[in-house]
């Protein structure tokens, strides 16, 4: 492997500082990168500490007594966390698919230059970026009028479309799909629905990936909708469960009866502190492994979005 950098080989001396400054810059970035990553490692370390050591000496950067009891407890007592995982997965998958369909279809329609209602629909997309009804009236409409209180759809529907994503789609369709392609399909007698689903969508994978990732992370990381609309603990997502555990550590002991022990005994013996950090790790682990591979789609979306919208 070549250890000479582009700078050393003389190819890339423009806009580059001297070696000393380069070392200082690298040190600064190493420090910043550690500040961004180490806190999650601390949470991992707490989740792997034994409850006994936490009780005696508190949290530590490195576990003083390594133990998998928190994860064992989670796996063993199952139902509550498995159900929350199920809710999170369902909401993320269904929400992402629904969101992609709603977003791309609208983006496509308002990107068609000859469409008669283009002006009207473009305003329908734009106005909410400027003005919104605010939390209070949104809450009452979703909870009372649409009957979303304590429904899994309260976690899915309100987040499905964002005008920002629709604009990204519209910009993509406008700039990358040649008009000739659609015109020739029209000449062959294909209807607009068919053109959209069998011609446009298959060649729009980059923008679908970008929108899909935005939606995926938004659904997986959402806790606000749960806080507003969900009281039934069976409908808690992982985020809602962690939110609940942060304010009430004993909530994990709720299904004591399922395990055949008394509530008091379970509260006394369960690994409370490490278990809630373990739930945080269950939430973060898939994200932490996924984002380095997908961040380029994120970045392309953010750059389009920042410039246009």
């Amino acid at each position, binding site marked *: 492997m070549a250890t000479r950098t582009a700078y*050393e080989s003389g190819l890339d001396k423009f806009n580059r500082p001297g070696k000393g400054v380069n070392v200082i810059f690298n040190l600064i970035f190493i420090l910043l990168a550690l500040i961004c990553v180490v806190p999650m490692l601390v949470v991992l370390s707490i989740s792997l500490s034994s409850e006994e050591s936490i009780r005696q000496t508190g949290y530590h950067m490195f576990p003083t007594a390594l133990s998998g009891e928190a994860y064992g407890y989670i796996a063993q007592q199952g139902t509550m966390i498995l159900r929350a995982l199920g809710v999170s997965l369902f909401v993320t998958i269904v929400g992402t698919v629904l969101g992609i369909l709603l977003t791309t279809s609208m983006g496509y329609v308002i990107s068609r230059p000859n469409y*008669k209602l283009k002006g009207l629909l473009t305003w329908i997309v734009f106005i909410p970026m400027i003005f919104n009804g605010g939390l*209070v009236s949104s809450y009452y409409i979703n909870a009372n009028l649409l009957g979303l209180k304590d429904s899994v759809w309260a976690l899915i529907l309100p987040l499905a479309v964002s005008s920002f994503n629709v604009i990204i789609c519209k910009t993509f369709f406008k700039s990358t799909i040649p008009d000739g392609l659609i015109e020739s399909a029209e000449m062959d007698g294909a209807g607009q629905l068919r053109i959209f689903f069998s011609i446009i969508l298959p060649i729009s994978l980059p923008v679908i990936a970008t929108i899909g990732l935005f939606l995926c992370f938004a659904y997986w990381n*959402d806790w606000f909708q749960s806080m507003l609309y969900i009281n039934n603990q069976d409908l808690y997502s992982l985020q809602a469960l962690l939110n609940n555990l942060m304010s009430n550590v004993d909530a994990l002991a709720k299904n004591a009866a399922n395990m055949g022990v008394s509530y008091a005994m379970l509260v006394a013996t369960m690994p409370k502190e490490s278990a809630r950090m373990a739930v*945080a790790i269950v939430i973060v682990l898939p994200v932490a492994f996924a984002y380095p591979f997908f961040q380029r789609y994120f970045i392309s979306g953010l750059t389009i979005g920042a410039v246009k919208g």
Partner: protein
Amino acid sequence: MSTKAKGRRLRTQWRKQDAELTLLALPTTIWYILFCFLPMFGIIIAFKNFKISGGFLSNVVNSPWSGFKNFEFLFKSNDAWIIIRNTLGYNIIFIILHIVIPVALALMIGMLHNRRAGKVYQTMMFLPYFLSWVVVSAVGWAFLSFDKGIVNQMLVNMGSEPINWYMEPKYWPYFLIFMNVWKGLGYGMVVYLATITGIDRTYYEAAVIDGASIWQQTRFITLPLMKLVIVMMFILAVGRIFYTDFGLFFQVPRDANSLFNVTTTIDVLVYKQLKTATVGMASAAAFVQSVLGCITILTANWIVRRLDPDSAMI
């Protein structure tokens, strides 16, 4: 004659396509009506003496008008001054830091000799952006918890008294500013870095041949070419000055009552009052936020359009 026939033929052809495109846009249009436009009309409850029980629509129509009573309550309370100060104060600090720090770091990372190292740093600094505020709140708790937190253990090891962080308002402005910058660092750099990598290398070649130092290259090439993006990000951020990140101000301080004065912004107040069913003040505060937000966003957009028409929203 032929143009007339052609026109009719075109119009009928459009009609079929228009119908199909309308059908394609219908689900999303319904979504917009239900989740965006209905709440816009629901905003009139700020001017009503709204009762929660029963059906929503009949309540909105039947509940008596109260004029500006709700607003009087809001602005006569001590909370009004606190939330306005917090919302604007924090946002002004965030806007400045979210430009100065990411621009400086993007300039620096663009100068690193080893591109691959730069990519690794950028990826690592992107991690907090992908964490939810609930997780960040758990991370904060690991450090700041009174009896078990890492910070207090360090203090004790150094011979100082432990501090009950969640009871001490004076530290929280710094914590909140730090958390906000920490979480937004990777995201903030993306746009600026894209601009820097898009700069034509021949500018630098010419400058180096003329004997320009690295600082002169930054000062006279990179920064001037970034100016437009920086100004636009600034204006767009100013446009959202009446909106705050609810998760930061509610989850990270863990809704601690003793921190009320330094952590309550418009969004937090509206949420708390909504949960305690004091609809009057909450709807008045939400109304003020929506209207002022609308004005600032439109103004910001108007300025952007004058600077660079392609980047304007409308």
